[in-house]
């Protein structure tokens, strides 16, 4: 059948995700889905306009990519610039302050996603009335839960403020260290609510876990497919969100790459460009572009790591892995469960750090032998984030390459969209509820399509239906 006989359905913009994107579905005359794609339609240009800027400005500049997890870019760039000034062996105070900042961010970002963006789908159903299937609906029906979400996010933001100076777009991490320690007053303020936060993280995890196990039959195949998984892990294989070496495993759990130094990432990772998206498609070179793509983010991290070094999260990881008998879990909707395991892990880490006296240390910055090229990798809430820079003798950046988490999840999200479209939309009359199924699959990845946010409750979804000649047959907006 030629393309001329197909009709096109567009979901634009995709809602309850960070940033702007659209989905296009090509249907034949029997409404069978022939093709489904997630298009990222934004262009940012940070890699270009960071060129010429002094290197010490970069951690503050590039974090402007995002308003939800700017700390990831801030820390990735700072880690990169540590190497430029030869200060990658941070003082204990500097490294622990940065880790505290990062766990605070992971905590608030995961909570934002679970409570504000995803919970409407889980609590009301994928095809519930969109008038209630939103964060306001959650606040009305489950006020206690909504308050927990807000307070947990606030707590994470307070940690960022105490470590970076501001809740959003702070300046804490500087090349070779940090510009402040944690005062006793700041520490005591944060310690006041820590036990409540641990308790709420446990209960949020239980919601995600129970939802997955109770609805397993329905959600196990939902947008699911076998894939490789990639993340950084510590040298001993432990989950580490702040630092480590690259590990990728296949759908069976066999290691494809392991303990790859971030400086060598280009020997193993390449990016493919496709004409219909502004976003590139990274893949593992030895496997090739066709099959070398990997999932990243919470699901990938829990799959790739050997263990977690906080007791409650480790217990939960073991329970999670038992579901697939120790093999990698390839269920798209299991992202939510793993995201909540990481939320618990983050708050356990925060508690541990708040009791660490190193945070009151005064040795903040180290410097050593100067370098001209640098790579840093960090596990952002949404997945593996690479920052690669070259800096000339004038201290100016001459090259920047950023591979953000959502870029790695580009192919997996497209697979998920394709799978849901074929399983749920083929051959039936397309309704808003069915289209939301596609968004549910995308949301599982918590994509950050850019830093833009959207008006709460507005749900600006436009669906256009074209006939096989490309004429607009019907359009619905809400």
């Amino acid at each position, binding site marked *: 059948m030629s393309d001329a006989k197909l009709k096109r359905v567009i979901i634009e913009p995709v809602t309850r995700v960070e940033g702007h994107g659209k989905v296009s579905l090509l249907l034949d005359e029997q409404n069978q889905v022939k093709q489904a794609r997630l298009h990222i339609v934004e262009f940012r240009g940070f890699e270009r306009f960071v060129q010429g800027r002094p290197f*010490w400005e970069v951690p*503050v500049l590039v974090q402007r990519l995002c308003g939800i997890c700017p700390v990831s870019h801030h820390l990735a760039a700072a880690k990169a610039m540590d190497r430029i000034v030869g200060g990658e062996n941070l003082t204990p105070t500097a490294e622990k302050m940065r880790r505290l900042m990062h766990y605070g961010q992971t905590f608030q970002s995961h909570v934002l996603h679970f409570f504000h963006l995803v919970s409407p789908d889980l609590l009301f159903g994928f095809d519930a009335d969109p008038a209630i299937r939103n964060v306001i609906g959650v606040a009305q029906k489950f006020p206690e839960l909504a308050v927990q979400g807000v307070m947990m996010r606030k707590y994470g933001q307070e940690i960022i403020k105490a470590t970076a100076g*501001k809740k959003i*777009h702070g*300046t804490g991490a*500087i*090349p070779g260290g940090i510009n402040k320690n944690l005062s006793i007053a700041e520490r005591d303020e944060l310690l006041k609510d820590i036990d409540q936060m641990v308790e709420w993280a446990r209960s949020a995890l239980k919601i995600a876990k129970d939802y997955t196990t109770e609805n397993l039959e329905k959600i196990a195949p939902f947008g699911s497919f076998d894939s490789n998984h990639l993340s950084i892990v510590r040298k001993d294989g432990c989950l580490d969100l702040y630092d480590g070496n690259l590990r990728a495993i296949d759908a069976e759990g066999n290691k494809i790459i392991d303990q790859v130094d971030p400086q060598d990432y280009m020997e193993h990772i390449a990016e493919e460009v496709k004409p219909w998206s502004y976003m590139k498609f990274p893949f593992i070179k030895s496997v090739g572009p066709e099959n070398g793509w990997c999932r990243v983010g919470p699901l990938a991290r829990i799959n790739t790591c050997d263990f977690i070094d906080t007791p409650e999260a480790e217990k939960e990881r073991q329970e999670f892995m038992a579901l697939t008998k120790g093999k990698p879990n390839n269920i798209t909707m299991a992202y939510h469960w793993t995201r909540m395991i990481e939320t618990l892990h983050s708050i356990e880490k925060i508690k541990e750090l708040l009791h660490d006296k190193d945070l009151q240390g005064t040795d903040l910055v180290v410097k050593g032998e100067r370098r001209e090229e640098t790579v840093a990798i960090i596990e952002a809430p949404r997945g593996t984030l690479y920052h690669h820079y070259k800096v000339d003798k*004038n201290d100016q950046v001459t090259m920047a390459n950023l591979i953000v988490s959502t870029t790695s999840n580009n192919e997996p999200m497209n697979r998920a969209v394709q799978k849901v479209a074929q399983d749920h939309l083929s051959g039936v009359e397309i309704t808003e509820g069915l289209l939301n199924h596609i968004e549910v699959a995308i949301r599982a990845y918590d994509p950050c399509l850019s830093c833009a946010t959207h008006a709460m409750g507005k749900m600006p979804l436009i669906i256009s239906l074209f006939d096989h000649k490309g004429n607009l047959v019907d359009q619905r907006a809400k």
Partner: protein
Amino acid sequence: MEKTVKFTIDGVEITAKAGQTIMQAADEAGIYIPRLCYMNELKPHGSCRVCTVMVNGNPQAACTQPVAEGTVVKSETEKIQASRRDIVDMLFVEGNHFCMVCEKSGNCELQAMAYRLGICAPKYPYLFPKLDVDGSHPDIFIDRNRCILCGRCVEASQDIDGKGVFEFVGRGQEKRVAVNAEAKLADTNMEVTDKAADVCPVGAIIKKRVGFAVPVGERLYDKEPIGSDIERKKNGKT
């Protein structure tokens, strides 16, 4: 005995030393007149016009106008404040001032002045001029995107350092601070210890690799608005 002169600023009677400027007399009396190009240690030249006051009904730069017996000076009138806002506003749109990623943020006199005058966002359209940076010097970085052409560096280098590293070139919108060399700052005899490296009110001339060493909350204008040091003198008296 030193000769004194009496005059008023916004109705407050001031006794000044003869030969002082209005700015000097006001500073001593604890009255802050907004300014950007003026700096205590440098010769005043009245170029930014932010310190313009009405002297017996005529606009004059307070930093260059000498005090005179019986004059009536108006500074904090709504009309004068509006002119000051316009001037600062124009300085913002004529450069490329991205405060959110500028290391001078919190220590920047232009930013602090905007806050003091209540400017939340520029009302004039941005010009987005194409301006360059000069990273050639081992210890000093020039970012002309942030230059407000106050002339402090020109004067400090000439009068205090005795080097003449900086000079103005071009006219009107094309005016720039140039260096006294074929091309770059590295070709001059400027040193990081020069006064000229210390006087920039904005982030146009910065010392390299300092960056964001001072945390948010600890920066100069995080704690109190620009001019508070002068106004404290008045509060101390009363």
